[in-house]
């Protein structure tokens, strides 16, 4: 089963615009991560935010986390054509009862129009 739900499922914007993707999850987490996947490739880690953090930046990426609403957002500023990819949020929910690693959402497919 998939813990996270990304919104929107697909997003198409013009190069230079900002792209915002949202993720909601259901249970308590240790941390939340965002990954990127280019078509036909593996996933690449972008950023990790811990449950006691509210905002984190990395280059053109900004991630927020609201544990009270069980939601996170990923903002990509000044988008580029090379940002075209699928973006997944993943939660680490390990509580000692199992070891199912990260649980991924269904992803947001982002298309940047040149």
């Amino acid at each position, binding site marked *: 089963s998939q813990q996270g739900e990304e919104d929107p499922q697909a997003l198409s914007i013009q190069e230079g615009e900002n792209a915002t993707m949202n993720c909601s999850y259901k249970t308590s987490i240790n941390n939340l991560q965002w990954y990127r996947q280019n078509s036909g490739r593996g996933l690449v*880690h972008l950023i990790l935010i811990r449950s006691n953090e509210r905002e984190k930046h990395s280059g053109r990426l900004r991630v927020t986390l609201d544990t009270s609403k069980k939601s996170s957002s990923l903002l990509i500023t000044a988008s580029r054509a090379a940002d075209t990819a699928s973006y*997944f949020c993943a939660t680490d929910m390990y509580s000692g009862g199992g*070891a199912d*690693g990260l649980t991924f959402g269904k992803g947001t497919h982002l298309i940047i129009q040149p």
Partner: protein
Amino acid sequence: GAGVSQSPRYKVAKRGQDVALRCDPISGHVSLFWYQQALGQGPEFLTYFQNEAQLDKSGLPSDRFFAERPEGSVSTLKIQRTQQEDSAVYLCASSSRLAGGLGELFFGEGSRLTVL
């Protein structure tokens, strides 16, 4: 190489055939995961190894799926008597950390299995 390596990248099997997918994680990484990714979906957890021990196999969809990591490095995911619903990309990921304190997972490029 420095990354996670998976082989084969592409596998076409006839229904009923057995397949074996290989994962070579980053050297020294204790945690190894297998995920299954259907077209247009996110990765779904299959199984987790801590070194050579398979600590969680709750995601394996049936007893036709079997995974091993006998020496705590290379892992093999075996699917017996393949069915069409097994068609997917199988992703391997490794981490230097243990489940319970996972940081970043490093993924391979995946093995795309098509069952005819």
